[in-house]
């Protein structure tokens, strides 16, 4: 009997996680380069109340037994790395990846993180940085007297300097990819970190070997669809409600059983 209470509690817990994930997705519906998460559920182990093969008479056995499930658990909250819509901004340092790949970002402690958010800026030294001021890796410095910055589909950054007709190449932005994008750890601030589950990063060149194209003057918007998330929110809430009814019912039945003894 107590089992039924705990079973329903696991259901409520799981749906709470689901709502947490959905709320975070909805909060980031306007975040550049944001990738939605999805909570995946699995049933818990089953307990045999009657073993299959238990004798039902001298010559017959129970063919299937009785299994009682013990509820549900959150198996994974995975990031879904589908492409977000590209939005034209006209800003020459806004870069969007159209397809596979991540920007490499050097964090203040010197370690690398990875990002899809290409709203880049220049710092006081003319270096290419993210909106948090983290350096893009490999580092690219734009000379102070540059008149225009061009970023090609392959990530080559060139600048036009006064007095020269031909643009000067100042560096190339290189992307990485992982065997399992879903295994990346989301660090907040639009950054991801390599984990054992993601595998080691593979460095490549934009628009080659399956890497995406780099589009200058565009930003990749969040891949969250409001309609989808709101529908998920409704089902999560109803599932939560259903499990809570399970608890109320179990409680009522327990109380009736206890009241047998007056």
């Amino acid at each position, binding site marked *: 009997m107590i089992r039924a209470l705990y079973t329903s509690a696991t259901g409520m817990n799981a749906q709470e996680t689901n709502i947490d994930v959905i709320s975070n997705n909805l909060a980031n519906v306007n975040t550049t380069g944001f990738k939605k998460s999805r909570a995946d559920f699995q049933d818990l182990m089953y307990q045999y109340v009657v073993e299959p093969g238990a004798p039902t008479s001298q010559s017959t056995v129970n063919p299937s037994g009785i299994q009682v499930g013990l509820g549900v658990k959150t198996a994974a909250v995975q990031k879904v790395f589908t492409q977000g819509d590209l939005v034209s901004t006209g800003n020459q340092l806004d870069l969007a990846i159209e397809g596979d790949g991540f920007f490499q970002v050097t964090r203040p402690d010197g370690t690398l993180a990875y990002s899809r958010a290409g709203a880049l800026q220049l710092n006081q030294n003319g270096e290419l940085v993210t909106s948090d001021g983290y350096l893009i890796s490999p580092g690219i410095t734009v000379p102070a007297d540059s008149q225009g910055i061009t970023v090609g589909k392959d990530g080559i950054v060139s600048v036009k300097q006064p007095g020269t007709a031909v643009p000067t190449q100042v560096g190339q932005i290189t992307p990485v990819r992982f065997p399992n994008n879903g295994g990346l750890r989301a660090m907040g601030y639009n950054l991801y970190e390599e984990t054992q589950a993601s595998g080691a990063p593979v460095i490549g060149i934009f628009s080659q070997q399956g890497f995406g194209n780099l589009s200058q003057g565009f930003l990749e918007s969040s891949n969250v669809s409001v309609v989808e998330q709101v529908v998920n929110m409704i089902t999560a809430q109803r599932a939560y409600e259903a499990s809570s009814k399970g608890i109320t019912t179990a409680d009522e039945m327990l109380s009736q*059983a206890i009241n047998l003894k007056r």
Partner: protein
Amino acid sequence: MDIGWYAAASAGVYHMQKLEIQNNNLANINTVGFKRQILTADQEKFDQTLAATVASDDPYAAADQVQVPNVTGVKARTDFSAGPIKNTGNPLDAALKNAKDFFVINTPQGPAYTRAGNFTRNANGELVTQDGFQVQGDGGAIQINGPGAAITSDGSIRVQGQTVGRLQIVRFEDPSSLEHIEGTRFKLTSGGSQPAQVEPMVEPAALEMSNVSAIVGMADLITTSRAFEAYTKAATAIDSLNTLAITQIGRRSS
């Protein structure tokens, strides 16, 4: 004791068990690929319970008490009907079109079968379930290198136009020979007949949701709790009769 008392108690225990199973169904109302369980007995009604008897296991029972009423033939079966298919747009999601088909998963305990097609890749690039077990392809594990991998409607996994593997799909003509194990997976009961390998029929970028319906789940909950209430009322009534018998009958007038 009155045989009615035993009948009410045994039916009460049966309905508690029923509630446990129904609550597990409700907890998994949002679990991809979940199949609900149904508990049935030979006697679903009280008069049937009263009429049904089993041999008492009390060796000292009096001759008229060797048979006690009991709910018999309690069986849990799994409803393998298909759940609703939801489009997710995630290229590594797959839903099976035939309700008797299953994906094959390699677990340390041997092959397991599942309807939950929410797959992902692990650090080695293999196609795995959300808890990391390999998905069985035609030739062992499915290795995905490179971006843009997608499962297609014939069950093959394509990466940049190249087929890198094909899902192994099996069909159980009689899925009742499957038993639940954790992780929304099933295993073959000992003595169950091996499934046949079939041509995959897959709905790509979609998931089969739980086949638990909220309406049926709630209706079941109400019937179970009301039935339980009725049995406890019956038990209380029998108890009152016994109290009366003990205190009133044979009362000595002083």
